[in-house]
């Protein structure tokens, strides 16, 4: 018997309240240890190890052999807690580690990610989540397969899901590997497998139920780890307790400094993986190209959000349709807390480095003075930062300072001179963010393969014990494949993340939306939409990324979903209209999905 049952649900606020209190006490304890002279490395190890052990314990306590608990957490997760779990599911290692750095380097153009990764939830709420919840499916392909009927439609949905989620999960395991290797002082290749072990401990025994309760715990760690350093820094610089509302002046000041120090000049040297700051911070382009690039990127990230199965499946776990809708709102609220902090963090870091009136600034100082700084030495040693006196004047110019975007989050506590306990906290937060997303993604893939491919297509007579064993074996196999790919370091973290959104929207966005909103959509149309959408998107990605093709209308490899989704929409409508309308039973099914009352379309234990 498992510990997590009915009365656990009633006591959720208390349980997680105690957990949060415990975590804060742990942080204090670490701060005391630091004062007592315990080394920075030990504190980093304790932070990562302690939190991962807690997640694994929650995973162990949530173990289950029931099908509906494994696939949809028994459909009893309250809206607010599902919102937190979705927040953790959503905010990946990339959001946590790379977002602020992206804003630091990319300025306004990069903000398209912030807008896209939040506004997508409006689509989830208005078009998808409540209807999928009413449907009562276990997985996203389960909806496609039942609404449109037939194994081919189901199979194509599984295919799109696997391609999109696998692209994404390798990046997450890569991030867990990076953080684990730095915090625990082990090689990256070992760190990747350590990260995978932690991820599997959270998800394998209890499926969706275990992932839900660990994700709530991970959300709490990651949000504390993100917000505390920013508030601390803001206080130090005199911007007050709510820095998110007060950094306007800092932005204006950066704008003034940029012209003084020559932001916009291209550097004469290059270091692999590192960048110098060349883009003005808040200026937004007024030409068609930059406006168009902004809105197309926003659209891709939004439609991708509304098609990513690991997000949609979180709303299958709420007790009701009404709770599913509210839960989308709570999800965005919890995501918002991090996303509106990231630009503040980027701004403070930038100001600290650029503003000559601050003690932390480095631009305009002598090269020898800057090279002697602890954090510069530490991060140069791991090749995440480089300084080079290109013009030989002995002074550090903006075009002579190179770094990786990730540093903005990882090194900010050190740049600002905060105690090491904060760096340990940030490492634990990054680990939580990457693990929670990897968990959701691996589970989405393994569940689609075990439920839709194995149970629904290959062996419909399998009993529930058999199904759950297959699900777990698949989870391990897929996790191992992802860790293996990640250990080969094929792509940078963010390139791959944007692709996952494009793949998902190319194949799944319109078949999902039209499945609810257009009764006339039929099997042939959905099959054509998924197949040609995925094919066109992939072909276009290949052509612009590797085939040397000039992108059409600035639709580059980050935006290939526009091509895929357009092809998907057109073929789906044309083919649906050219073939017979869906039978009466299917039409009644759509009618049922549209009202919250009554039994779900699929049996609760199908």
């Amino acid at each position, binding site marked *: 018997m498992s510990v997590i049952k009915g009365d656990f649900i009633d006591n959720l606020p208390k349980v997680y309240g105690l957990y949060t209190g415990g975590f804060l006490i742990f942080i204090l304890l670490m701060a005391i240890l630091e004062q007592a002279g315990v080394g920075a490395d030990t504190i980093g190890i304790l932070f990562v190890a302690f939190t991962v052990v807690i997640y694994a314990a929650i995973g162990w306590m949530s173990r289950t052999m029931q099908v509906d608990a494994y696939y949809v957490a028994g459909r009893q997760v309250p809206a607010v807690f599902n919102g937190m779990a979705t927040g953790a599911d959503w905010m990946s290692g990339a959001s946590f580690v790379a977002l602020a750095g992206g804003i630091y380097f990319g300025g*306004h153009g990069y*903000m*398209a990610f*912030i*807008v*896209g990764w*939040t*506004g997508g*939830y*409006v*689509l989830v*709420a*208005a*078009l998808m989540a*409540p209807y999928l919840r009413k449907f009562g499916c276990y997985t996203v392909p389960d909806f496609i397969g039942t609404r449109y009927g037939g194994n081919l439609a189901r199979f194509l949905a599984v295919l799109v899901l696997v391609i999109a989620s696998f692209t994404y999960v390798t990046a997450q395991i890569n991030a867990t590997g990076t953080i684990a290797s730095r915090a625990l002082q082990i090689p990256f290749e070992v760190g990747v497998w350590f990260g995978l072990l932690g991820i599997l401990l959270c998800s394998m025994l209890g499926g969706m139920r275990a992932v839900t309760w660990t994700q709530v715990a991970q959300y709490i760690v990651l949000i504390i780890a993100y917000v505390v350093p920013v508030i601390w820094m803001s206080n130090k610089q005199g911007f007050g307790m709510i820095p*998110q*509302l*007060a*950094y*306007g*002046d800092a*932005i*204006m000041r950066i*704008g003034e400094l940029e012209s003084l120090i020559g932001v916009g000049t291209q550097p004469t040297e290059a270091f692999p993986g590192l960048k110098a700051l060349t883009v003005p*911070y*808040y*200026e*937004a*382009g*007024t030409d068609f190209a930059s*406006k168009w690039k*902004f*809105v197309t990127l*926003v*659209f891709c990230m*939004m439609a991708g959000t509304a098609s990513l199965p690991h997000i949609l499946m979180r709303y299958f776990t709420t007790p*009701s*349709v*009404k709770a599913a*809708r*509210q839960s*989308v*709102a709570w999800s*965005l*609220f919890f995501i*918002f807390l991090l*996303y*509106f902090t990231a*630009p503040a963090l980027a701004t403070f870091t930038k100001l600290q480095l650029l503003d000559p009136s601050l003690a932390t600034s480095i631009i305009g100082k002598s090269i020898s003075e800057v090279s002697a700084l602890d954090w510069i030495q530490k991060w140069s040693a791991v090749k995440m930062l480089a300084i080079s006196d290109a013009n030989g004047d002995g002074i550090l110019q903006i075009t002579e300072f190179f770094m990786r975007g990730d540093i903005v989050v990882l090194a900010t506590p050190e740049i600002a001179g905060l105690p090491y306990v904060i760096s340990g906290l940030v490492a634990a937060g990054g680990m939580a963010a990457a693990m929670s997303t990897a968990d959701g993604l691996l589970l989405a893939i393994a569940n689609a393969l075990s439920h839709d491919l194995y149970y629904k297509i290959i062996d419909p007579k399998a009993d529930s014990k058999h199904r759950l064993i297959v699900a777990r074996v698949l989870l391990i196999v897929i996790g191992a494949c992802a860790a293996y790919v990640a250990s080969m370091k094929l792509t940078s973290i963010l390139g791959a993340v944007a692709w996952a959104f494009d793949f998902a929207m190319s194949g799944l966005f319109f078949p999902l939306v039209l499945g609810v909103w257009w009764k006339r959509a039929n099997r042939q149309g959905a099959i054509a939409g998924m197949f040609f959408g995925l094919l066109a998107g992939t072909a276009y990605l290949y052509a612009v990324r590797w085939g040397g093709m000039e992108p059409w209308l600035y639709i580059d490899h980050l935006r290939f979903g526009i091509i895929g989704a357009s092809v998907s929409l057109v073929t789906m409508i044309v083919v649906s209209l050219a073939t017979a309308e869906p039978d009466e039973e299917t039409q*009644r099914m759509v*009618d*049922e999905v*549209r*009202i*919250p*009352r*009554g*039994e779900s379309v699929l049996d609760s234990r199908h």
Partner: protein
Amino acid sequence: MTNVDQSTREAHWAKTKGLMITTLIVWFIFSYLVHWFAGGLNSVTFLGFPLGFYMSAQGSLVIFVVLIFWFARRQHSIDKEHGVAEEE
């Protein structure tokens, strides 16, 4: 099949569609329209921020959060109005 007559279903769905369209119009404005004009908005200062930047860093996000909470409430009252809300 839940026992709800066809005309109720149609009336409920028409209202639901209307709410969806209203929601997506607000969504469109704050996802695309305001950012299209970010360059011009930047000459306006809001809470000390250049407005174009502010909208992408906070303004649109706040609107989205409020919009979804509002949407969830409205949809629930539409459901109750037509007697198709879930039994509590």
